[in-house]
């Protein structure tokens, strides 16, 4: 080291000498005797030059990142798993607090504030989905689906799961991973259920397949294509009639408007947490939740860490501690039915602050606003020559646009030249014929934005 490093206190002054003297070692090398010589690297690492100077490092990062173009500089209609929702400034302020960014596994007494905020995350998710047991967040919605299907399999002792034939390929790929390959004994078979012309689960196909081999039925409302399921209670009933779990994936921002899964008979609810006050971060903002009734058969199967409210030695005082820790992979090791680890706990603090600021009216308002904006965009696009949207389906936030004469890559290239990121290209995906894109419209899109898109599309399609 040419000079002391700002991130290593003992690289400056005489601390090293003092500690060497205290341990009675000649030099640091003498402390590495455990590592055999032939394990050791024979040369220094060949890495890019050290940027210990913060001004130099900052400039390097800025220059590197300037090579991106963002959804702030452009007008974006990309959704499909990471959505451009508005992040209230207080959410950034809350997650930016150093106390929380640097916390690790403190005691309930010393990291009390964080634990309470976690509990407020689970409690508010519980209020939204109307369920009593909610775990701490998992990596993503896809991971939440995977874990919940595995839970269902353990609860029912069955090894097949029914899912919609049209599902986000990102989430589907995660689920497939969690269901293990067919070569192995413990795998779970994934069976798809047809989607009707209305964009919803085909009841007949579902009934036909929902036999006593089924651990769970999984469906989403709104669906991957944005379609709102008209009668989710009926689907859950079919699942329960088959002795299976009814797992529902929901967009939490729809729940001021759409019925809560707990109210229509879902037994497990999952969903994404990124819409609740977390930026997209190139996909780094995703997270997932799992909720269920507070019954032992569910509670004992959670893979997550779980926080519970508690009394303390002081009468009337609340504290918060982990419950059911020993059933996690930390406790079970090779007996673990599933596993957990670092997840997205910091984002759950943003989620908690978001839900607290939103309140019941905020959720109702944003639901109406998203439907109105997305609906008007869908209508305007459908009115264009060469583009069509099925307006008969009630949609939330996302909708499929079919293009008659151009492929989506061409359209999106042309839109990009106009500063617009078009919808996700879903050409060739399940349930799609011809060129199609999935557009996402949220509360962040103004009527002017939609006009701008429509005008650009008109030019591009001409």
């Amino acid at each position: 080291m040419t000079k002391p490093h700002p991130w290593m206190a003992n690289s400056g002054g005489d601390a090293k000498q003092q500690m060497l003297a205290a341990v009675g070692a000649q030099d640091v090398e003498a402390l590495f005797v455990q590592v055999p010589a032939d394990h050791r690297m024979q040369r220094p690492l060949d890495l890019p030059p050290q940027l210990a100077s913060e001004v130099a490092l900052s400039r390097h990062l800025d220059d590197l990142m300037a090579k991106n173009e963002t959804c702030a500089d452009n007008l974006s209609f990309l959704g499909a798993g990471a959505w451009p929702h508005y992040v209230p400034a207080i959410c950034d302020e809350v997650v930016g607090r150093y106390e929380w960014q640097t916390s690790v596994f403190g005691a309930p007494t010393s990291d009390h504030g964080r634990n309470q905020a976690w509990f407020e995350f689970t409690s508010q998710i519980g209020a939204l989905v109307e369920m009593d047991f909610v775990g701490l967040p998992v990596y993503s919605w896809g991971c939440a689906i995977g874990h919940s299907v595995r839970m269902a399999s353990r609860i029912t002792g069955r090894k097949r799961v029914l899912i919609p034939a049209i599902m986000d390929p990102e989430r589907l790929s995660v689920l497939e991973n969690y269901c293990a390959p067919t070569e192995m004994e413990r795998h779970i078979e994934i069976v798809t259920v047809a989607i009707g012309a209305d964009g919803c689960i085909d009841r007949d196909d579902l009934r036909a397949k929902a036999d006593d081999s089924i651990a769970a039925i999984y469906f989403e409302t709104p669906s991957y294509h944005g379609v709102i399921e008209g009668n989710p209670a009926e689907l859950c009933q079919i699942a329960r009639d088959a002795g299976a779990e009814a797992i529902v994936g929901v967009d939490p921002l729809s729940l001021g408007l759409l019925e809560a899964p707990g109210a229509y008979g879902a037994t497990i609810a999952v969903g994404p947490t990124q819409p609740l006050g977390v930026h997209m971060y190139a996909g780094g903002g995703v997270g997932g939740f799992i909720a269920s009734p507070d019954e032992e058969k569910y509670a004992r199967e959670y893979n997550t860490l779980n926080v519970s409210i508690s009394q303390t030695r002081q009468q009337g005082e609340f504290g918060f501690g982990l419950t059911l820790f020993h059933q996690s992979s930390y406790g079970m090791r090779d007996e673990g039915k599933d596993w957990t680890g670092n997840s997205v706990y910091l984002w759950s603090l943003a989620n908690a602050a978001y839900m607290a600021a939103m309140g019941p009216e905020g959720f109702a308002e944003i639901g109406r606003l998203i439907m109105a904006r997305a609906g008007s965009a869908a209508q305007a696009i459908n009115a264009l020559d060469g583009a069509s949207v099925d307006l008969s389906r009630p949609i939330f936030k996302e909708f499929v646009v079919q293009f008659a004469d151009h492929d989506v890559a061409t359209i999106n290239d042309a839109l990009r030249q106009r500063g617009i990121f078009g919808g996700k290209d879903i050409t060739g995906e399940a349930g799609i014929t011809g060129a199609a894109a999935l557009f996402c419209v949220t509360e962040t899109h103004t009527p002017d934005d939609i006009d701008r898109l429509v005008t650009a599309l008109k030019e591009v399609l001409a």
Partner: protein
Amino acid sequence: WAEPVVCEMTGTGRRGIVFDDAPAPTLPGTAMRKVAPALPEITEHDALRHYLHLSQMTMGMMGVSLFGTCTMKYNPRIGERAALEHLRNLHPLQDASTLQGVLELYDNFSDFLCEVSGMDQFVFQAGGGADAAYTHACVTRAYHASRGELQQRDQIITTIQTHPCSPATANTAGFEVITLTLEENGYPSLEQLKSVVGPRTAALMVNNPDDMGIYNPDIKEWVRIVHEAGGLCFYDHANFNGVMSRLRARELGFDACMYMLHKTFGAPKGGGGPAVGAYGCAEHLVPFLPSPLVVKDGDSYRLDDDRPDSIGRVREFWGNAPQVLKAYAWARAMGAEGLREAADISVLSNNYMDKRLGEVRGVTRSNPDITVPRMEMTRHSVEKVTQDTGITIFEISIRMTDFGIDALWLSHEPWLVAEPFTPEAGELWSKEDIDYWIDVFEHVVTEAYENPEIVRTAPHNAPIHQLTTALDEPDQWATTWRAYQRKHVS
């Protein structure tokens, strides 16, 4: 602050955020919500103040935290600023032409970690260290399946001192887990390994050194034996800080390894993520890596999702980009000389702690027969203190928080060492901080002998008192306010 649970603040008619009005949509009644969610009704200021209060009631690294196995590092604010400013408005499905900066970042950092590890490719999709272990279990499946051997190779070997995530993810992925036990010298013998390796062996998943600070000198031989039997070898680099820049996983023969960027590479821990388990492997495993993979084509970068042998996704999209940026920033600021210095200081500081802790009444070390210097942490025990005074390590830990010491790490399960504790000094903290930590520890041990009540009734200087509810009892636990109301109020 005596801070109420936010869920109590309902029914006030207040708003924390508002949106423009829009007409109610027409939907089937079966789809519409009937009862508004029971959420708080508070102002923006109330919401902010509430969470700021809670933040102040969180110790984090505001005090001195030598939290073992977690490698407490400085989380540079420059990375925080850059990530928030540059990455927050990126969508993962943007056209690659608009993602050149972040893709170059991934490629650069993969190259960086390849040099550090000797591997050929790194990916950042795994959302934490355990997720990277899971990734390895999936890659192991795919690798053996590609050779038609998956049905045969259904066992993964690990050791009792390996982090729980290795056996747990192996088990989750469908493997049978064989756990080797420690022997006198602190690690499983070659004979024990040989006795379980065979045609059913799919992989070895281990860390080294372990949390005792003991380095397994036979590890190269282990790798050779497992390879010979047709298995893969995965190096969980959880305890990398002390060997950083001194050894490379690939040179020891490993096929894959993992670094926790939120730990060894200075990204913040956030109380448990967002995190990144950077998973790296040698060329023969690259085809199986999760998709999409960042690929350099000439001067530009793209995301390759057309990889038929890939295990697909372990998580949607391609990783916690902001954490990757922060870790990259940390790594570049350290450079080769900084990594070396950090490893040196970590090991030196730990041995200094060992020396001083060894002088504290009633404190012993794991594997007392091993007298050579330990690596970057050591597992100690206060078994004798407990025998003498009845005060447990848990009580000592809580009492230490009264002095601004983050509740210390005890041990992963199972507790092979009684009344264990495992401080890890790392390279961040000053000798004065370390001395303060030890002074407090010694003070509390002295209290245990002289005034145990003060330890037993701790904390005395924390936001709340010790919990008393039996949280593992179904009629007691409540993970939501709804459940609490039902079980404890009504």
